[in-house]
């Protein structure tokens, strides 16, 4: 019988029959097909998180080896080539293979749950973006592990990156690997944007969105339009290296600074993309442990967007020493000062939330609150570099290394660790060990600050970046030793974190649906949630649905127990962009191996390009074309085509 094209959804309450019907519709296949073909955002989110944490550990090990080499002057543990590949791979791993994917993982897992939906807008694209991430990470690490790792730093300036000075495969692995990874980020960005605007629970207007939506959406909207800059830069570099073009080389009227502009037009927005979502974890999580809603929600939301917009206009501050005209530098310097203000809004909002709330100290709270100070320390060292003449002294010294680690560890890693403690119970159904958590926190906190606080001095005393060793008598010996010791303490802290995760997975106390008595929609589902997330689609009336009865605000109240059932297929609700009025019933795709096959095709293509074998490139292209055709073939069950007339 032909299904109707328009339907009034049934409204009702949950029941055992309803749940088992939904389970039948939403439970994915088991076995290999299920593993390779799952489109469940929760499974994909966990894959992202686990993969990113593994890469965090790799990056950390790379750092520890470097710190051993730098513990004293004239180190002999590493030769220059090894050191150069280590520092470059460390930067690439942390900034590209850990910092964004970990946030994407949390957002992938949480978004439909906090939005009151049943999946992301494009579940197959979601699976695809994970596989590309995994395969590009493997591609890049094959380079490193075969002694062909990137060796020109994570921002890879030309001419040193060109074939004349870097003849090996190192830069080809890096260039192609980054273009490869860029596909994953772009696919993820498209998914987040459409999900945020079109798949929210009824009533979740823009001013009621959880902060994780604001943070991640802003970051991904930016990624969508800046990733092409870096992909292009790497592509042009690969062309110069392999096909004799002259984009960057002066012998053909090329322009070395073109690389820097393209890279930093991407690079600066990128560093905001890897902290804004993490800041939003704090904005959602910290208030729970202060037992009150976030102070200044509209200002924090707007400042997130404002920071990102301003973030497009500051990239030249990475180039203050390149001989640019003073007028241009003044503009970018001023913008780099101004951007401090929206960033500061979040800091004051968090402090006010603590002061005007009833803080309860838990491990998650410790991570969420301590990051405020480390954010500010990282922020002020950045403020110092905005002052152009001072930057001429600070840039390319360890002062900048101190800055970047305070902002990355302070505004990404610490919120991530807090987010794990906060959302682990939802994802696993178990609580993490609080006592072990305190040990984890304090050792991590002390280790991090011991390692990186003295580094500001190391920089002020002139130690340049990216040196495989240094002479004695420069005033750097003791500082470097302290940093090395601190880095190992930090490593112990991370180890305790991993132990806590594994131990709690095995034997953590049962969590229940809402162990923290938190206000968000995700806490109204079981822990872990069933594949369909919500048995009935909630209707949202405020920012803190589960706290409405406590906050005593008059007016309408959200409904989580009664709502649309949407059980006539694998269905979810689509909504209007601003006010989240329900405006269509979405049919979601079943598990499919097309994304996996397409990712294999892409891998074949990139390997072919690396080896410059046209036959392999051809196979890759064919696989991609077939995979795409298979994926996009109009399907009846998704209502993309008419059923056969009968």
């Amino acid at each position, binding site marked *: 019988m032909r299904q109707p094209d328009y339907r009034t959804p049934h409204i009702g309450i949950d029941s055992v029959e309803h749940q088992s019907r939904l389970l039948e519709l939403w439970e994915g296949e088991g076995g290999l097909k299920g593993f390779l073909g799952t489109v469940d955002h929760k499974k994909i989110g966990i894959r992202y998180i686990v993969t990113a944490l593994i890469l965090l550990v790799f990056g950390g090990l790379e750092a520890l080896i470097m710190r051993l080499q730098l513990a004293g002057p004239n180190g002999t543990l590493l030769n220059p080539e090894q050191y150069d590949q280590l520092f470059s791979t460390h930067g690439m791993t942390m900034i590209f293979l850990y910092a964004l994917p970990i946030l994407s993982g949390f957002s992938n897992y949480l978004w439909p749950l906090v939005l009151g939906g049943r999946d992301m807008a494009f579940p197959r694209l979601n699976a695809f973006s994970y596989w590309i991430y995994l395969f590009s990470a493997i591609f890049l690490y094959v380079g490193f592990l075969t002694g062909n790792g990137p060796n020109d730093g994570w921002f890879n300036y030309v001419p040193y990156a060109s074939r004349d000075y870097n003849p090996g495969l190192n830069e080809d692995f890096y260039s192609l690997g980054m273009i490869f990874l860029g596909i994953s980020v772009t696919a993820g960005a498209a998914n987040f944007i459409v999900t945020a605007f079109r798949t929210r629970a009824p009533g979740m207007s823009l001013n009621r969105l959880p902060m994780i939506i604001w943070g991640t959406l802003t970051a991904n909207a930016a990624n969508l339009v800046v990733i092409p800059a870096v992909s292009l830069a790497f592509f042009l570099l690969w062309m110069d290296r392999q096909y004799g073009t002259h984009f960057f080389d002066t012998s053909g009227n090329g322009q070395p600074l073109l690389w820097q502009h393209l890279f930093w037009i991407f690079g600066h927005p990128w560093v905001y993309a890897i902290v804004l979502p993490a800041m939003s974890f704090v904005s959602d999580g910290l208030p729970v442990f202060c*037992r*009150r809603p976030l102070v200044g929600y509209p200002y924090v939301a707007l400042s997130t967007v404002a920071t990102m917009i301003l973030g497009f206009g500051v990239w030249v501050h990475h180039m203050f020493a390149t001989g640019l005209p003073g007028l241009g530098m003044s503009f970018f310097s001023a913008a780099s000062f101004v951007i401090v203000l929206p960033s500061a809004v979040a800091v004051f909002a968090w402090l006010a939330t603590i002061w005007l709330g009833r*803080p309860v100290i838990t491990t998650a709270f410790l991570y969420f609150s301590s990051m405020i100070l480390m954010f500010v320390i990282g922020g002020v060292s950045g403020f110092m570099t905005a002052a152009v*003449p001072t930057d001429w002294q600070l840039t390319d010294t360890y002062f900048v290394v101190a800055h970047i680690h305070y902002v990355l560890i302070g505004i990404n890693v610490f919120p991530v660790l807090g987010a794990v403690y906060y959302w682990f*119970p939802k994802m696993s159904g178990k609580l993490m060990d609080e006592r072990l958590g305190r040990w984890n926190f304090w050792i991590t906190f002390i280790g991090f600050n011991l390692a990186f606080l003295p580094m500001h001095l190391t920089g002020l005393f002139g130690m340049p970046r*990216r040196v495989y060793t240094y002479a004695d008598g420069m005033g750097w010996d003791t500082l470097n030793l302290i940093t090395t010791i601190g880095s190992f303490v930090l490593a112990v802290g991370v180890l305790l974190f991993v132990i806590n995760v594994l131990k709690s997975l095995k034997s953590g106390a049962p969590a229940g649906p809402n162990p923290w008595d938190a206000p968000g929609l995700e806490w109204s589902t079981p822990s872990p949630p069933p594949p369909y997330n919500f048995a009935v689609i909630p209707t949202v009336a405020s920012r803190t649905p589960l706290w409405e009865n406590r906050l*005593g605000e008059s007016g309408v109240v959200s409904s989580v127990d009664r709502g649309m059932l949407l059980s006539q297929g694998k269905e979810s609700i689509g909504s209007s962009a601003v006010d989240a009025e329900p405006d269509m019933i979405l049919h979601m795709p079943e598990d499919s191996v097309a994304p996996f096959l397409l990712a294999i095709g892409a891998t074949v293509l990139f390997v072919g390009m690396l080896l410059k074998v046209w036959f392999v490139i051809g196979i890759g292209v064919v696989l991609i074309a077939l995979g795409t055709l298979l994926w996009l073939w109009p399907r009846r069950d998704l209502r993309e085509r008419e059923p056969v007339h009968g």
Partner: protein
Amino acid sequence: MTPLGYLDAAGQRAHIILPLTWLTIAISLLVCVVIAVLLWLGVRRARSSGGAAETRATAVTGGRSGVRWIGMGIAISGVPLLIALVWTMVALAEASGPPADPGLTLDITAHQWWWEVHYDAAQPDQTFTTANEIHIPVGQRVLVRLHGGDVIHSFWVPKLTGKTDTIPGQTNLSWMEADRPGRYRGQCTEYCGWQHAHMAFEVVAEPPAQFQRWRAQQLQPAPAPTTPEQTRGRSLVVYRCGACHRVGGTLAGALAGPDLTHVMSRSTIAAGTLPTGPGTLAEWIEAPQALKPGNLMPNQGLSAQQLTDALAYLETLK
């Protein structure tokens, strides 16, 4: 003792920069202390510590709006921000513009991993080229024209001036003016490959008379050899070292490596890697790859006699 530190200045340009640096340090420390205190006092208000049970046990409160704290915080932050912004613009204007009437002009080309320094002059026969050690007269503004040789490097003498990159395809301008005599260390500060860590140089600021004497000496060609050893040494140096190096007054005229005409007058060799002296020079010539792996000078494989002869000649190149 921090030879590359920039919290003290010995030159005019560095003097323009330093107060701004101290201002921003002071603001930064103040902000960190204030935020740390606010955070500490806020967290100290916590009435319970624990886990999920303690969190649930603490009642949810609507609390006051608190928005004005954000407003106040932003307003207060704006003040030091504005001060720093204005000060920056002023300092940038003052520190920028290359000098209109420099007392001395240098053309510096950065190579992997050494510094080629050419002294410009009105008359061509007053110009000369040296490497890695730059002498300047105290109290005179020196224009530095920076040329990209191979990859991007950065010219930095922290006590005298901020960093300026050397970029192929363009000439960047910097300037320095030492206000007292001294030896000031510089180092490349843009990653440029394997031996980026060993690409230092020195700026020696001297009283004008002393500078003129140094300059006159640098204009001299290499002295003629006076002993048989030196004679053999000169032939060897011209034949072997001349493949990459120049020695003024001989047939060695290649420009791939540092000019050696006055190599013994410099305090270090291999761009700040080793102090100059017969022992280190011997070590360097025999096995440069052991001391600075990856640098562009191959191990020479000289016999003991050849090495002695070469050193005998090289030591005359003062």
